């Protein structure tokens, strides 16, 4: 009798434990959808922490405006400090503990790489990684939809502009010694090869490095007339500043990760003037109707008083918009497979960022999962203002 009761209780416990999983999609209930993101709220990349906070405030706005198909977004964000080990631990904990329907954005190539295979094996959708790495789409993954224009092509576009428009010949690069930096390095090398040129210097920078005099000395020794900066915001500022101190004045060109000129101007005390970067959305100081709307309805209402309205915060909204669009289109009966099918049907979608186009999954076509190809070039003016140098450029 005792044994039968034990078997009965254990069976019931197992049944109740598995029932939610059997009955609905993971991370989805009748009233909630669980979405996760990691972001560097501390550490050397903390300036990019605003991305995750921008997404969070955008979701609050979505919820206060009725949610999606009767469900509210429950947002789970954690600080990984730009440390891939922490990213992996945090993602696993949330995925296996809470159950996340999909992940959005997530700053960093290296942090993202630490969790990519895990999420793809579990068939968990990941929309809009906040990094333009080739790794997301080479090869493309069914459940990974990339929005950020590829760093590889950003570097190629900058080199092309430097050589063809600015008539530069001696191009060097300072790059963060991780996957993000190496993407920029590879793009620069390929673009220069097409013009019959080579990099005159390639200087790796470690994330924890604060004294960059030896790095600038190497760039100066190479007599570079152009320096690509594929580093964090603080490294970029230190290189630009130290170059000024050394009387070394090449044309600096940064990746889109350092394109928030208001912020760069502030932390460089005005030295960032003249730097050229690609960007893929209206600058946060512009009068673009969505910028004005989101600043008023999202930032002014939900952001903490220490938050700064800038490029990184608005990027958190840019990456989340296609996710919300996909969930809307999937309807009330929300499953991951339905969501993925709807994401594949997104064509000509343009909100804050560039036009987004996806296609049905094709493992040989990166553009089935790389939704954007365009950026335009901007240059930092005094006081952090922005000058637009080009129209949208299709990067290839």
């Amino acid at each position: 009798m005792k044994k039968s009761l034990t078997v009965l209780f254990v069976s019931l416990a197992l049944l109740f434990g598995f029932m939610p999983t059997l009955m609905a999609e993971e991370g989805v209930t009748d009233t909630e959808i669980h979405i996760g993101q990691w972001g560097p709220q501390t550490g050397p990349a903390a300036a990019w922490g605003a991305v995750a906070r921008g997404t969070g405030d955008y979701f609050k706005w979505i919820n206060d405006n009725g949610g999606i198909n009767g469900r509210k977004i429950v947002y789970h964000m954690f600080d990984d400090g730009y440390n891939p080990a922490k990213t992996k631990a945090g993602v696993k904990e949330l995925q296996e503990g809470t159950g996340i329907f999909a992940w959005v954005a997530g700053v960093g190539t290296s942090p993202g790489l630490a969790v990519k295979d895990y999420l793809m094996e579990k068939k968990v959708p990941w929309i809009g990684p906040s990094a333009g790495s080739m790794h997301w789409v080479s090869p493309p993954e069914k459940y990974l939809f990339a929005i950020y224009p590829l760093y590889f092509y950003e570097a190629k576009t900058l080199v092309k502009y430097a050589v063809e428009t600015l008539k530069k010949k001696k191009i060097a690069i300072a790059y963060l010694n991780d996957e993000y930096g190496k993407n920029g390095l590879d793009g620069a090398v390929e673009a220069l090869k097409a013009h019959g040129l080579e990099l005159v210097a390639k200087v790796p920078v470690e994330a924890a490095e604060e004294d960059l005099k030896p790095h600038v000395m190497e760039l100066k020794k190479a007599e570079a007339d152009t320096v690509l900066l594929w580093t964090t915001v603080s490294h970029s500022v230190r290189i630009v500043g130290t170059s000024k101190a050394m009387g070394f004045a090449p044309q600096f060109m940064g990746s889109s990760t350092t394109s928030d000129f208001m912020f760069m101007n502030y932390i460089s005390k005005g030295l960032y003037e003249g730097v050229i970067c690609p960007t893929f959305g209206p600058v946060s100081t512009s009068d673009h109707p969505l910028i004005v709307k989101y600043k008023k309805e999202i930032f002014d209402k939900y952001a903490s008083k220490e938050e700064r309205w800038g490029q990184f915060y608005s990027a958190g909204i840019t990456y989340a918009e296609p996710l919300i669009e996909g969930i809307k289109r999937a309807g009330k009966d929300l499953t991951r497979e339905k969501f993925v099918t709807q994401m594949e049907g997104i064509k000509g979608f343009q909100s804050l960022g560039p036009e987004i186009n996806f296609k049905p999954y094709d493992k040989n076509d990166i553009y089935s999962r790389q939704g954007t190809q365009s950026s335009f070039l901007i240059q930092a003016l005094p006081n952090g203002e922005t000058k637009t140098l080009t129209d949208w450029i299709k990067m290839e």
Partner: protein
Amino acid sequence: MLDFIQMVVSGVAVGSTYALMGLAMVIIYKTSEVPNFAQGEMALASSFLAMMLLTTLKMSVVPSFLLAIGFAVLLGCFLEFAILRRAKNTNVLGMIVITIGIEMMILGIVSWKFGAEQKTMPFPIGPYDSYMIRDIFIGKLEALILSSALVLMSVLFLFFRYSKLGLAMKATQQNSIAARIVGVRTNRILMMTWGISSAVGAVAGLLISPVMMHPYMMWDPMLKGFAAAVMGGMTSLPGAVIAAYLLGIIENLFGGYISIEFKSVVAFVIIVMILCFKPSGLFSRHYIKKV
């Protein structure tokens, strides 16, 4: 040749910050016999206080800096009195863990209060203004750190050699029981030691703040300062200073001629090698047992 000279000059410039942090750590180690891993964060808190005084209260630089140094002294005294002294019967490892805990606490408070994003501190000297002598440059701010470090070192040397308090500190370090017997109030001495050490570290923090501020800004100087202190001998003030400048020069030469990627690793390789071959440090006279 010019490159070599520039690297040496840059190494000396950056070595001043390491020297101040190394000095601060040795001052505490000499009396408390514990490496203080909260050294960097104690300087961090003082630097952010100065930034707050400059930006929010619009005070001018000199009073802000003096108040920040005063705060650093009080902070050091408070930490020794309220936390370190209360630890009963702990061994060195226990004390080290306590200082690591203090470090994390201060880092968390500063991050929470001021945010993790980079910030700047208004200062009359631009962060990258420099003197150029022929083709050799030294930053004006670095020259200020160098001269401040030399002045502080001289003051500390005279203090420990000739002042009553300095002698009392040396006595406490050499034999605290005997010092107590002859009337030295060793608890008070320990507290003041932490206060002085915190002030020395705060000078380093304040002078690197005009370049860029963020909660992790003191990690690198603290670790390199610790490396310099180990290299010089944890009980030798001049040793820590000389080692700090040597470290700055070695780092820059290594980065310039051998590998820029592993430039920062040099400091830690040095710690390991010193601990293996001369654990008492290059300039320490005794304490061979104390590893």
